[in-house]
């Protein structure tokens, strides 16, 4: 019988020391939560949704509650979910004031004949299925409000050098369940002070995430525009299709992204046979993996701590 594996990430960037403990705690808790779904026979799809919801609800991370603000001081959220068995997918881009964009993305996948809804249309759909918009101040933290004020002086639309020091965390999860089905989910509030309507990699299939039972599932984080240029999630799986291990596939792809377009980021990958990897070229990435009764986690390069999963 297949053993189920779940990996989560809370964003690849220069996570400041004062945020590190909360980030690690957050991904560990989300991994535990998602893993319990798998343990009770839930699907990979259920598990990644549950894990990402937990991260969205956690104000430490730039997704759902705690999302960064765009140039107008508003919250615009992106998310994607994908089912490796059927290649079905759901995504939302620039949806406003929804607590759990990943669940809305799943609803797009399951309740419409479309894959992606954006803006007002996405919000209308949410309302139509009883997901109500919540007031902006319920989603915005003091920290993000302060950061928005600080960065307001930079014009949007001017060519800027986005380096890894700028926060571009995002959350995500990948899983393989005991039936051998893989799934991925990614959710974000985007880049701080982004232009209104800016869509990054997160909701774009093949970029922010991809899942295919024949090769595996990926969720990406990092500099969105770079991830888009190399279709990072799809690139990693093409290497897996060519016989590379998930770890090598991840390393090669992130290396390529750095060389070709000078972008840094992080990825989590799981294969249908239960191989997994958490890899990043940024200073840090908070991640956690639940496999074979062990909870692995880390935030600094080369770090691989572990503890018993059941506590």
């Amino acid at each position, binding site marked *: 019988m297949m053993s189920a594996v779940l990996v989560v990430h809370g964003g690849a960037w220069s996570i400041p020391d004062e945020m590190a403990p909360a980030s690690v705690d957050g991904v560990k808790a989300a991994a535990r939560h998602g893993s319990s779904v798998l343990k009770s026979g839930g699907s990979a799809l259920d598990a990644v949704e549950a894990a990402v919801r937990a991260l969205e609800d956690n104000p430490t991370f730039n997704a759902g509650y705690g999302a960064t603000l765009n140039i107008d001081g508003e919250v615009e959220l992106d998310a994607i979910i994908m089912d490796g068995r*059927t*290649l*079905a*997918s759901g*995504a939302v*881009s*620039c949806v406003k004031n929804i607590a759990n964009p990943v669940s809305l993305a799943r609803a797009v996948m399951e309740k*419409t*004949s*479309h*894959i*992606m*809804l*954006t*803006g*007002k*249309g*996405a919000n*209308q*759909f949410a309302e139509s299925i009883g997901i109500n918009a919540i007031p902006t101040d319920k989603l915005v933290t003091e920290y993000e409000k302060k950061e928005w004020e600080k960065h307001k002086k930079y014009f*949007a*639309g*001017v*060519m*800027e050098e*986005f380096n890894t020091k700028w926060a571009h965390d995002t959350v995500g999860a990948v899983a393989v369940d005991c039936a051998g089905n893989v799934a991925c989910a990614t959710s974000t509030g985007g880049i701080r002070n*982004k*232009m*209104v*309507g*800016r*869509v*990054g990699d997160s909701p*774009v*299939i*093949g*970029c922010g995430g*991809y899942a295919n039972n024949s090769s595996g599932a990926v969720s990406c984080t990092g500099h*969105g*525009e770079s991830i*888009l*240029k*190399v*279709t990072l999630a*799809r690139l990693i799986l*093409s290497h897996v299709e060519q016989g590379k291990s998930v770890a090598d596939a991840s390393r090669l792809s992130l290396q390529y992204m750095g060389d*070709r*377009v000078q972008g840094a980021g992080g990825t989590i990958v799981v294969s249908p046979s239960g191989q997994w990897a958490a890899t990043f070229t940024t200073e840090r990435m908070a991640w956690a993996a639940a496999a074979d009764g062990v909870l692995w986690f880390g935030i600094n390069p080369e770090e691989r701590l572990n503890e018993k999963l059941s506590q």
Partner: protein
Amino acid sequence: MLPVVVVHGGAGHIPKERSDLSTSGVCSAVRSAYAVLQGGGSSMDAVVEAAMLLENNPSFNAGCGSVLNLKGEVEMDALVMDGKTLSSGAVSAVRNIANPVQLARLVMDKTSHACLTAEGASQFARSMGVPEVPQESLITEYSRMRWKKNLAPDANPVECQMGKMGTVGAVAVDTDGNVACATSTGGMLNKMEGRVGDTPCIGSGGYADNMSGAVSTTGHGEAIMKVTLARHILFHMEQGQSAEAASDLGLAHMKSRVGGLGGVVTVDPQGNWAARFSSRQMAWAAAQKGTLHYGLYTGEHFTQIIEDAH
């Protein structure tokens, strides 16, 4: 072999009475794009020129002539990508502008972002001085008629299929060996408001990389997205498949894995090109070495000398 440009006006089931318009439209667009290349223009200039002409042509599902969403409104998507730098620009669900592909290029050239959506895309258009056009100027009698027809609960399923696909696009390689792609669409007939298909999604609606080639896709958007068709075809080319073989492999994979039909135009940096489709028809045209190539139905390949080519 260089330069080359290939354009498509949408894969699907084009009603006979409109097929002449499709054929003349793509031929006209490819001639203009070829002239751009011959005049020393870049592959990006050429594909944007072709796509803009097709957007302006009311016979195609892009810009003017776009299909309507469920509410009877026009929401458009577009993508451009530069094979040299992998830079891209995209807009999704943008309203009230004549040329979404031009706005997509501005996103690429004038912002640090790759995609803008909906109201944000409109704001950006205003800031760039792109004129706002009344929605009426984008709606044709034909698109309104099809919208109405498909609102009816007992809408004719065959008629429904017509132009459910359809998007315009182009790929090119210039004399410097740089490849580019552009794709533009009004989307799916009677789509939900805010529905975004494959077109503005990099790797799905199109992809361009000087190391392997460029692709622009058309067809059932959701199916194209599931297999990231453009990127999939280029993976095959990276592994040594020809433009034609890779395109066929990609389309066959899409059909068998997710049951979707579509078409692609593909070019490699050496100037080998292909126009392939698994749907019943795809209006396409190509220009290379002073010769115009074009077709509509499977197996068709007509040629004509381009008189004013030098």
